[in-house]
């Protein structure tokens, strides 16, 4: 870390390699678009590089990085919101086709719609906790809220999903 702070690019590369998977996965979950997820991930690391001297080591480097990633991704999504809502791209279709899918397209669209329809603060916590396995402690640090707030938001996110899906939930599970 000290070497990276001193401008050592190789040391920063090590930090990049150790953290990039989780950052990219989170960005992709949030935006659902390969190009934007790449842009957000790259911006996250570039901002981290520019602000390394501000990292005091109170929290883990990964936690600090996650807070930048969430901020970059949410700001980016707000700016290009229409991209998030557009139909899946040709590239994505090619990419996901070989995967085993359990749902019919209609059912998948309804599920996506329910998650997309969550208010941003609930959706972010839901994606981080339930889909990407972040702990409430990590989420709280990344979002700058109390752990209890993170738990409350997750509870509400799940309740809203149940409400949105209603009886259709039985079709899925």
């Amino acid at each position, binding site marked *: 870390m000290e070497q990276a702070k001193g401008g050592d*690019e190789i040391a*920063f*590369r090590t930090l*990049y*390699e150790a953290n*990039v*998977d989780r950052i*990219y*996965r989170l960005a*992709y*979950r*949030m*935006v*659902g678009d*390969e*190009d*934007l*997820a*790449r*842009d957000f*991930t*790259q*911006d996250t*690391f*570039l901002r981290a*590089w520019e602000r390394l001297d501000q990292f005091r080591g109170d929290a883990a480097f990964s936690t600090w990085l996650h807070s930048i990633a969430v901020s970059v991704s949410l700001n*980016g999504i707000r*700016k*290009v919101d229409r*991209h998030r809502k*557009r*139909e899946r*791209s*040709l*590239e994505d279709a090619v*990419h*996901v086709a070989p*995967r085993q*899918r*359990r*749902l019919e397209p209609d059912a*998948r669209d309804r*599920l*996506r719609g329910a*998650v997309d329809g969550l208010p941003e603060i609930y959706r972010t916590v839901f*994606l981080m906790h*339930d*889909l990407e396995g972040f702990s409430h402690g990590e989420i709280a640090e990344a979002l700058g809220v109390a752990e209890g707030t993170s738990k409350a938001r997750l509870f509400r996110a*799940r309740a809203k*999903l*149940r409400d949105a*899906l209603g009886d259709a*939930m039985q079709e*899925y*599970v």
Partner: protein
Amino acid sequence: MEDQRMDELTHLLREEYNPPPPTPRAEMWEAIQARLNDPGASVVSLDAVRARRTVWVRRSMAWGAAAAAVLVVGFGLGRFTAPTSVAEAPGASQAPDPQVLRLAATDHLERTEALLRMVRADGRTGQLDPAVGSWAESLLTQTRLLLDSTENDDPAMRALLEDLELVLVQIVGVADTRGADGAQAREELTLALKGIEENHVLSRIQAVSPAGSPLAGT
């Protein structure tokens, strides 16, 4: 019961809701590294490209003509001012001014990157900006001029320009399918998008442009 259902739903969503593809580690690092090594480089983000689209298109047409003119003048000067003395090494004075080449190549790669990002994003909806065709044609002309001027100088740059030439030809082809049936247009578009991805032209542009351009120092 309700909790169990929620757990199952969550499990399902992990597979169905934006399942992340493999992380493109190397490609992203190349882009990051290019920007670390040139903090002053402008970041050609999708959003910025879209916001500046109109200005870019107008400027690109003007710049295209200007850069082409600069290159042509460069060649012309090299040829017409070349001494005819047999004592001089053949071709030594005919090389275009490296400064001119560097300027033209850097600007060219930046504008080509902007076009490719726009095409890649717009291409997904199947609706390309109407100005893309003429913009791509202009860039294609400059790519060929640069190819002529980088003969054997720099194999990496030459390979990149050759790949860009192919991709730009495909994009011009997409624009030419306007008015044709949708299937043909989609097929052309898919080929162009594949060309962009498979040749990794965007990451290669970012790796060499602008400060890291192999033309620098020639």
